[in-house]
């Protein structure tokens, strides 16, 4: 078939193709890494002194944890302040953040690190490694802090040298911490890898002078939230178990006597309560149970109506701003896109503002103080 002279065509074709490929290939030498559509290059060289840090967990194993900063003065929000300041990722699953003097300490669960940054510019000062899935940090005094871990042990950090000085041995998942006198009350869920039927949920009481567990109090399953009120009573929120092992409960503990004074039971059906926190005055509790609920510490029963309705959103994180008393609530949406943060008036539940955050906004940290949780 003499339709075309394929010999010359084919050579030409081959030549063109091969040279095109080699040309494009040898040019593109930039490493292939995740990028952002229209990257915001605006890096406001502000100091982080008057605002709210939003800790965005990021997806497990994706290494896309970030910190967003909401400036209280301007009302503007800046995304991924760590990435911009340090030209690298923050790490894998940011659980929480605490402030100590001029430092911010961000706990990275799956990286097993605590990233210490200077609050002036959010530049990394040190990455402390050697944790076992760190959860929360509590400053004990100017020299030391405790870090709870999901897998085992409580890590004791030397705040002067920024190293792990020692560990308080425990095989269990420890979570929230509250200070009472020279003791730390730590919620302990039980062994992480066991189901709730085999876990023993309790509160460890640690003598901070000796770094020793001195006593424990039994609680409902999964005591994840802990707070202290103005009358020095400790409140513990138990989810009842991710697997709905038992009815969720809210417990009031007398920290001096090491006894549970009162237990409020939630209905065993319906939403599971989470994210217990206290206002600065120490007289009102807040938590998420679908919507956001408000409960005076003097109340004899659980509130029946939320102060903020979820309205089709899935509320994920909650905190009270210690300075203004405003509520900050997050919506992680589908966990695979940027989340939202809402600011509400704590008295009437009216929305004041809303902000875009990063992937899975889970917790907040306020420059004005650590809050009462």
């Amino acid at each position, binding site marked *: 078939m003499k339709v075309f002279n394929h010999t010359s065509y084919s050579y030409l074709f081959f030549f063109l193709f091969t040279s095109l490929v080699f040309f494009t290939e040898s040019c593109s030498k930039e490493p292939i890494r995740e990028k952002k559509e229209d990257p915001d290059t605006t890096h406001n060289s502000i100091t982080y002194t008057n605002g709210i840090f939003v800790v965005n967990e990021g997806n497990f194993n994706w290494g896309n944890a970030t910190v967003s900063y909401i400036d209280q003065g301007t009302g503007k929000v800046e995304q991924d302040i760590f990435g911009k300041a340090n030209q690298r990722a923050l790490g894998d699953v940011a659980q929480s953040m605490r402030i100590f003097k001029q430092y911010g300490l961000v706990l990275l669960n799956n990286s097993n690190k605590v990233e210490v940054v200077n609050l002036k510019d959010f530049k990394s000062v040190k990455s402390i490694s050697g944790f076992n899935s760190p959860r929360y940090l509590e400053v004990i005094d100017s020299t030391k802090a405790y870090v709870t871990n999901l*897998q085992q042990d409580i890590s004791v950090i030397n705040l002067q040298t920024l190293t792990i000085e020692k560990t308080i041995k425990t095989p269990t998942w420890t979570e929230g911490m509250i200070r009472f006198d020279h003791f730390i009350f730590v919620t302990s869920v039980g062994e992480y890898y066991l189901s709730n039927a085999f876990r023993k949920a309790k509160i460890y009481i640690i003598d901070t002078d000796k770094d020793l567990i001195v006593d424990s109090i039994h609680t409902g399953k999964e005591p994840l939230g802990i707070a202290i009120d103005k009358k020095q009573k400790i409140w513990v929120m138990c989810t009842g178990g991710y697997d709905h092992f038992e009815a969720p409960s809210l417990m009031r503990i007398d920290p001096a006597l090491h006894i549970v004074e009162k237990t409020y039971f939630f209905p065993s059906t319906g939403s599971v309560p989470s994210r217990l926190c206290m206002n600065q005055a120490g007289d009102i509790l807040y938590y998420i149970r679908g919507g956001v609920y408000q409960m005076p510490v003097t109340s004899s029963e659980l509130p029946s109506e939320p102060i903020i309705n979820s309205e089709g959103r899935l509320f994920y994180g909650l905190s009270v701003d210690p300075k203004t008393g405003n509520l900050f609530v997050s919506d992680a949406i589908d966990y695979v896109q940027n989340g939202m943060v809402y600011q509400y008036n704590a008295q009437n539940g009216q929305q004041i503002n809303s902000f875009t955050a990063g992937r899975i906004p889970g917790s907040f940290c306020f420059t004005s103080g650590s809050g009462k949780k």
Partner: protein
Amino acid sequence: MNAVCQNIKDTLKLPEFEIKSNYIIDNHGFKRVDLDSITLVPHITADLSTLLSEYSTIFVKSYGNGTLATPSFRGTTSQHTQVQWNGINLNSPMLGQIDLSQVPVAQFEKIEILYGASGIALTSGAFGGVINLVTIPNWNNRINLMMAQTIASFDNYTSNANIAVGNGNIQSHTKINYSSGLNDFPYFNDYLGESVCQKNAKFKQYDITQEFYWKLKDKHLFSARVWYRYDDRNLPPTTDSDQDKIEKQKDKILRALLEYKYIERKYNLMIHTSMSDQYMKYTNQNQVAEHHVYSWINRVRFTYTGIRNLSIKPGLDFNHDWAVSDGYDGIKTRNTASFFGEIAYDFSKKIKSTLVFREEIIDGKFMPLISTVGIEYKPFNKINFSISSNLARNFRFPTLNELYWDPGGNPELKPELDYILEGGVNFNIKSKNRQFFLETTFSGYYSWIYDMIVWVPMEDNSSLWSPENVNEVMTRGIELGLNMQWKILGFDLGFKNNYTLNHSTYEKSGSINDQKVGKQLIYAPVNAFNSVVSLEKWNVFLRYNFIFVGKRYTSTDNLFYMPAYTLSNIILGKNINLRYICLTLQVEIKNLFDLDYQSIRNRPMPGVNYAFTMKISFGKGNR
């Protein structure tokens, strides 16, 4: 040319220069692409993920070198891609997907890629398509021995041995492969800010396959096949997670099947029974999880071609799955019975049609009737030009994990439903002297998936995730193929290209703040292209493979993405013939331009790497 060298697996008797069409139309109106043994031979020590990403438009989501790799077609998910080996579903009934890195190329002779609805003839749930791995006897073989050894970068080694013996009535085929490696390739870790070696990535795996075929009077065909796989591997950490984390996975998989075919002039009958036993053990620092799934698969197929222009193929399948898992509360089982029919009718020489329907009963419940109708039109007598189209409805039943995983599994899940419309054009031409062959194909598809299952945090308990029928996805796209073969000045030249454009978008919002509607599915590239140039003369062969993987979004709001990248791989080899013996020496260079890339976020991939293979084969056939 010595046939031993040309085709070590010796499954097809090839003329000196055989014209091979990539695109084979079997059921009229559907798209099917075959990768034959000639394509597979230089990749004998590779796994299926390498092959599919280099030669097809299937997107392989690779989590690293030699670790988890899952396939997806046409913007659907890996659960919508079924991989079958001689009629056995290789997809895990628990996860509903397959790890291609667990399937060595050495274990089969041919790959059939059935696109879209054409998979309904084999199974339900394959919205994207079916990858069918075929082993076939060669009745002309008398004895064929092959041994190969590969030494590759990062202390990776693979050994292969094949023994095929038999005569015109009985054939036995034994295939063994063993691989081990440290896989500790260097890469730049952005998080640590330095070049490091991949940690905790060593592996050890082997496969043993034994096949027997027995033919009696050209009417009865018996076959028995057993495939055992052992895989012990460490799972490397992602770049940003704790590098000292130790995770391991051990798999032991046994698949066995018996098949009988009775062939008459106007009808034939096939009876198939098989079992698979999949054991998986996952270990980390403080946790061990074991999963064990047994499947028993039975198929009966009858074909009747006694009426002119008509063929009727009724069939009956019965499968039983039985799973014991640390993730389940008790033993979980599933019974699937399906009735199936395929009717092909030729209206004329130019217009041919196929109708396939399948009704499945799963655990006593009738599933939606699924069916597809395809039509093919060849308007010209002397020109190989055809237009085809098909329309289908398909469903995917939830996996055992989606139903029963404790905690979170949702026994109330409905099956996912899919409606597909597809059309294509195929044109090929060969020169009279058979020195040149050209084929072009075009296909376009449009599909809508309803009730797509996604794991989402539970409304009443955001710390617990559960699968729900929440997503709706629209996929549409085009696929282009160009295949050319020449014989010029004693050179055998080949040039195969595939391009795909796909838009798969979320069509249903999950909540009021959800920004994903109209956005592309994550990790579904919009554009993908691959090309293979092959050149052969003086028993020297050269293959150059070029892959382009387009941008993949990493967030459902499409604000983050992994940039597009291109890869080049090259194979250069020489066959040395000595009467019945063929010695092959081959060098493969992967990632020729040493691109520093990640296909999946935070999963490092190696830079330029090499593999040297020495292969010796001895063959005597009856020609």
